């Protein structure tokens, strides 16, 4: 079964063509065009000399009622079908949550790279419902680009309650598509806890290092007899290796 997806955003004149190879030796076949379950057209077609059937269906798509799945169907012992799916452009759908802090400004962006919606609209969640955002009524919201291929919702002075799901809806003449964006508003205490934990760890490390050094220095100083012994040893070795020590240090190879 053959299927194809077509993206359409504005009213168009459409011509669909199906080419079949019927099984068996027939001269006349019936081809049916359907939209979903609804029958649109049924007509007989002649089979050409090279055993192909050429069926065409022309119509216009004006509003969302004419969008959907159109199929061409060859009746016979072996049913052959091809399907064309007409859809409005879908939005990007990258769903990484947007992290912000209390008091910051968040800018939520929705874009459609290859389409131009008639209108954009923003909604936010209220429990399980979608509530439209009206920028004119509420001045913490600023919506820009309602009629271009990119729209931005700017929310100023974020509070923790502003977190949650937001939707942008692209409206076309032939339908609409939505995209969901998640906004997370954190308080500044959230990163401060790991920050202080790491600083504490660094201080502990430094104390260990410096204490170890003080400890090893004390060990070197305490055996006084040992120190004198060391000095005598050093003098002896200096005497015998005097020449070598005075020469410039050379790299041993």
């Amino acid at each position: 079964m053959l299927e194809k997806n077509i993206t359409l955003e504005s009213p168009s004149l459409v011509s669909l063509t199906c080419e079949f190879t019927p099984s068996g030796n027939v001269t006349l076949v019936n081809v049916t065009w359907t939209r979903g379950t609804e029958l649109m057209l049924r007509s007989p077609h002649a089979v050409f000399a090279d055993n192909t059937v050429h069926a065409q269906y022309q119509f216009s798509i004006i509003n969302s009622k004419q969008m959907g799945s159109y199929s061409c169907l060859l009746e016979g012992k072996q049913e052959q079908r091809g399907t064309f799916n007409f859809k409005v452009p879908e939005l990007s759908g990258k769903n990484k949550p947007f992290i912000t802090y209390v008091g910051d400004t968040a800018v939520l962006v929705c874009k459609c790279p290859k389409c131009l919606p008639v209108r954009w609209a923003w909604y936010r969640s209220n429990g399980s419902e979608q509530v439209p955002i009206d920028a004119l009524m509420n001045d913490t919201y600023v919506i820009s680009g309602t009629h271009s291929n990119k729209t931005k919702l700017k929310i100023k002075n974020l509070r923790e309650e502003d977190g949650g799901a937001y939707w942008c809806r692209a409206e076309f003449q032939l339908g609409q598509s939505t995209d969901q964006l998640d906004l997370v508003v954190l308080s500044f205490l959230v990163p401060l806890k790991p920050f202080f934990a790491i600083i504490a760890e660094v201080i502990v490390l430094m104390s260990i290092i410096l204490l170890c050094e003080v400890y090893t220095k004390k060990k070197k100083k305490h055996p006084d007899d040992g120190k004198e012994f060391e000095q005598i040893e050093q003098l002896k070795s200096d005497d015998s290796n005097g020449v070598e020590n005075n020469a410039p240090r050379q790299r041993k190879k």
Partner: protein
Amino acid sequence: MAGRAEPPDGGWGWMVVLSAFFQSALVFGVLRSFGVFFVEFVSAFEEQAARVSWIASIGIAVQQFGSPIGSVLSTNFGPRPVVMTGGILAALGMLLASFATSLTHLYLSIGLLSGSGWALTFTPTLACLSRYFSRRRSLAMGLALTGVGLSSFAFAPLFQWLLDHFAWRGALLLVSALSCHLVACGALLRPLSLTEDTAVGGPRAQLTSLLHHGPFLRYTVALTLINTGYFIPYVHLVAHLQDLGWDPLPAAFLLSVAAISDLIGRVASGWLGDAVPGPVARLLMLWTTLTGVSLALFPVAQAPTALVVLAVAYGFTSGALTPVAFSVLPELVGTARIYCGLGLVQMIESIGGLLGAPLSAPTSRPQELVIEVLDTKVSLHKEEGLEEE
């Protein structure tokens, strides 16, 4: 403490290797993985990517230009207090950056402040390391510098995770806490006095003597030239691959392969530098030539296997030349002058780094063809796809 005649070549030196490892991770690993933040900055401040990338450029430039200051201070006070101060500055810069309200704010806090912090940490640490080792210097350098490669692997996904959970402000706050580990690393740098130190004098005397030292100057010019081209391939490799038709994910994967090979090259070259007798400078020449050859073959290679082989080769050879480049310097100027020497080298070679980027600006990409949809005609053939015209 009486001055030692010979560097210890071990003992506490390995702790210094550990400290240098974490420091290269926290300085260059952070710088290399900062690209992850740039995407967020572009949308948060509504600025172009080119302007945002200046943050890293300023940071690198300040780190390299400020190296002599780090060197002079280390010669006077020893590496430990200098590196610890540097760590505090670097962390402070990130902390202030988390409160940023504009891009200029980030230029100053990350670029200038953290950059100065990094200038005070990286150079003194490597110089201190080269004073602790002589026979196994290259190996110690190689091991320490693997911190850069490994951290690039770890930090890029870590930073992305931080961004996904805390947004860029919280993430910068936590990177600041992470940078505090530089202070702990600095605490590991126990001062070492060698008998040569008294002979060479204070920092000003050292700097003057270095600037009159012929081999040192020639070496600096050589490193500057290497530095001009060094960073370019990593910057442009992915774009080049995509121009050849590669998908983003395999292209990024190839970059990771080159990075792994870079890591192996560093350690292998470090070990080799110590194992092979004779001047290390010959090895530097070998690796630089091989790097150049592999780079020159890149525009010619078309087949995927050839590109993979070249990426591995380039990664290995460019990684291999790093520890050797650092090892040559102490042989050239002596461990007493190493702090000042390294600082001067970093400052001068940064000119190469700054020039390299604009000189290699990519050519414009071909315009994509735009197909207009006027009317929709659809036909279904047995095997072909749909034609929309």
